[in-house]
């Protein structure tokens, strides 16, 4: 797991997953989110660049993480969705529920801009 503090903050904790994101990987991912539930204004960023498949158990683990983060005033965002994963997100309309960014840098920039806006 990588942690990046931007200047000015917020702190974003980053996880990069790879391969099949399914029922075998989901428990480990849930453990990671539970251990890293962000404080207010902090974010978890899940990079799916190397993920070529996602099943419903894995989607549920993302939804679970997203809800826990939002309860604490933070969020769980996604970036780098590859085509097979993008299709699943469109079919299930999970794209309505998550903040989805093209790249990590894009996600960082948006988070920083939002953070500054809230400070003002």
């Amino acid at each position, binding site marked *: 797991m990588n942690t990046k503090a931007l200047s000015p903050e917020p702190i974003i904790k980053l996880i990069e997953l790879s391969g099949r994101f399914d029922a075998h990987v989901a428990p480990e991912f849930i453990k990671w989110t539970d251990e890293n539930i962000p404080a207010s204004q902090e974010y978890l960023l899940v990079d799916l660049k190397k993920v070529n498949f996602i099943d419903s158990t894995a989607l*549920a683990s993302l939804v*679970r993480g997203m809800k826990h983060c939002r309860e604490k005033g933070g969020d769980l965002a996604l970036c780098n969705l590859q085509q097979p994963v993008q299709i699943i997100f469109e079919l299930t309309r999970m794209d309505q529920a998550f903040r989805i960014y093209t790249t990590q840098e894009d996600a960082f920039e948006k988070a920083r801009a939002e953070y500054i806006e809230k400070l003002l």
Partner: protein
Amino acid sequence: MSSSSELDLLAEALSEAQDQLLAISALAQSTAQQFDIEQLLPILAEHAKQILNAEAVFIVVNIDNQPPLLVDFPTNYFDPKEIVLLTNTVHETVDAFQRICLVNNTPVYIIEQKDNDNGCVKLGFQVDTPETALSPTLNLAQTITDQVKIQVENSLLHRALLAQAKFQAEMEAARQMQASLLPKSIPSSAETGLDITVHFQPASKVGGDFYDLKSHLHRGAAFAVGDISGKGMPAALLMSMTLNALRNSFRFIQNPTPEKVLTQVNQNMYDDFTRAGGFATVFVGSYNAHKGELSYGNAGHSPVVFCPANGNARFLEADGTALGVLSESLSKSQILDISPGDILVVGTDGFTEAENPAREMFGYSKLLNLIEELREGSADEIKDGIVRTINQFASGYPQSDDQTLLVIKVIEGKELWK
């Protein structure tokens, strides 16, 4: 004289050896039908005492990380604490050994039989002095210990089989209960104006897929197909709750529309889904035969294919995400004019994500062509054609997710009711 006394001794030794063989045979026989380890160990200890001609015997069995099982014969001859302490120390330091120790000031010979899988068995028997433990007795004691180990393993195997049988029986009961929640029969085409059929195949005994069907009072039908995230028992529990919430919404909402029903179910189930860490994709449809109208709502569900009698098949995509994801459902009611010959296929992702041995997925793109090819058939023929094609694609690769398929073909359109 001397040769006669030698003969006597030899005869005595032979007779003793025969007695021991018989005793070992009796040990094996008496325990053959006894699989309960708690009842088995005292019998073994008693036989061991007889065979070894010892004043007292104890047996300690360590299985995995459970507390050790301990018996002695005669009962309470040894202090159990002292035995456990002694054998535990030994267990940690030595893999296989034979040695003499003092237990309650009695010299005891201990033989251990250990393997990496199922823990170990230790047999201790009283000896008068260390010297009396001669090698024939030790060989015998080793044989008995081996026998005890075999019996313990048999007993553990039996216990595991019983537990498995009980689990299977419970799963079977759960399967029957889940099956009983689903519609018992399919409404007839006379009631609905539709030719309807369903294929329902959970990947294991219970699953998270569900469907529901009900004919309208005045021609037509309401139906739903859903898929709970995850698999197995957790999904099955959420499935029964969601199906119940869905039925209640249909029953109690005035003029229920797909949108109202999905909104209501999401509202009622959102907290449950959050606690359980799951969600449900649901497709809800209602066919009004008088208007020739299908109104539907799709909360994150796929695949749903509409194939008009004279047109290209297309997906009816979700406009709102799955139930339980957001606190408010965003799915709206959509209206579709339909006519005789039109086909609606509502599946679950167990079909599109079916894999072949090369772990390629069936996918979505092939489904549209397939349904167009099958469009002339009845609902049953279309269903069978889809299931057959997916099974051929999988070529025996095991089904990993629940598969549900609802196929509806319109028989009577509004023209008949004007």
